[in-house]
């Protein structure tokens, strides 16, 4: 049984390699070109540092605003898709809706919102909100499902109302997890937002795409370095904050 599984797995992989035209020889032939492009990227062009930094700031803004709005919108959604809060008639449809919207990537949402509201960072924010709301709602609901029943019983036994039970029995257990998920989402959204500019939804991606199209590799490398620095700084801040939550 296990052997058959392994065999089928290898067969599938072999087929995908053939169908995608994966060819080690072709890759090796391409290596000199990669080196060539890397060479043409050096040294990075300091003249585009200012626009690159402004673009990075926009990207951070898009991710920050989008994540913050989604963090709030996801709260009610998280509760109505937790198995231990609502009954099956609510739970299953809610989960289905979340899974549907979650399976669409931020970049695809960006394409839709650019078409709807025009170019610029705003459709980028909307795209981040659309994806993050549903993905956070899923994470929230899992946190709610994982709570310790004990404190909930204890608070209920004091004669507390449903809202008080939620506030004193459930919230203290899930809030640190929620915040940690929000920060984690912020980190991934910064990365996702770096490419939103490719489809006209604002931020640093716009500059990267522009310089690559102009074959100005030295300018593009400056933008890339700024992107890397931005992601690292946000990651560092976010993970420091997350450590303090646990």
């Amino acid at each position: 049984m296990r052997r058959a599984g392994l065999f089928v797995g290898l067969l599938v992989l072999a087929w995908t390699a053939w169908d995608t035209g994966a060819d080690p020889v072709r890759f090796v032939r391409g290596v000199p070109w990669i080196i060539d492009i890397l060479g043409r990227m050096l040294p990075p062009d300091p003249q585009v540092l200012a626009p690159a930094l402004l673009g990075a700031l926009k990207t951070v803004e898009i991710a920050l605003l989008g994540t913050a709005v989604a963090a709030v919108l996801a709260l009610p959604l998280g509760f109505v898709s937790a198995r231990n809060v609502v009954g099956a008639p609510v739970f299953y449809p809610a989960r289905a809706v979340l899974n549907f919207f979650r399976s669409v990537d931020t970049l695809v949402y960006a394409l839709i919102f650019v078409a709807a509201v025009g170019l610029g960072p705003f459709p980028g924010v909307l795209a981040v909100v659309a994806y993050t709301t549903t993905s956070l709602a899923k994470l929230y609901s899992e946190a709610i499902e994982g709570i310790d029943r004990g404190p909930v019983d204890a608070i209920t036994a004091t004669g507390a109302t449903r809202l008080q039970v939620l506030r004193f029995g459930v919230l203290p257990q899930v809030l640190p997890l929620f915040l940690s998920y929000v920060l984690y989402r912020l980190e991934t959204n910064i990365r996702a937002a770096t490419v939103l500019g490719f489809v006209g939804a604002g931020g640093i991606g716009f500059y990267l795409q522009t310089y690559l199209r102009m074959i100005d590799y030295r300018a593009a490398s400056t933008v890339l370095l700024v992107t890397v620095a931005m992601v690292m700084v946000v990651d560092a801040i976010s993970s420091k904050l997350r450590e303090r939550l646990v």
Partner: protein
Amino acid sequence: MIEIARLRVVLPPATVVLDGVDLTVRAGEFVAVLGRSGAGKTTLLRAINRLVEPTAGTVRVAGRAVTGADGVELREARRRMGMIFQQFNLVRRASVIDNVLAGRLGWAPALPSLFGRFPPADRALALECLAQVGLAAMAERRADRLSGGEQQRVAIARALAQQPSVVLADEPTASLDPALTGSIMDILRGINVERGLTLVVSQHQLETARAYATRIVGLRRGRVCFDGPPREVTPAVADAIYGEGA
């Protein structure tokens, strides 16, 4: 004080946990409920404040019906009954004093309580209850920094903060070091004697029950198989409660 009549609890699909329990507890009694695990001790206690919904039968506490009570009446009944759990069931991330204040939720003004605001009198009372279990100095500590024995004392303080007439304690010493059993049971005897509170304590240790209780109730397969003073618990009675036969 507590009148239980023909109480049945059947858990889905068809597990009969309590099979017609009749029990009347007078004010000021210290009742120990004995029985093997699975005999229905926990379910009996949880059915008294309806953390477990009885299938049939009635429970009255201080002359008022608990079974059949609507939401408001049930909360009013619950706030007069303190409950202590085997696993303490504190909100682990909250401070000790906040855990004790939770005992005031049934009494405090609802809206301010949702923002963590309690009347000064409630805070004073909570501190007083903490002092009674010898933990006044730990009020600001996080609950999960305390030892197991200390956590159970906080849980007792939370129950006392309700100013209850009845305290239900579900195996309050079962998850503690045996050396701590005496200290917890001493505190329970103290509140029974000094405050005149009615206590119903489930215990799996016969010796502890005999040393502290004024009355012993034996449960076997969801039915009362013994009810009498500790001195009447003969080896034959113990065998009837715990024995393998029939």
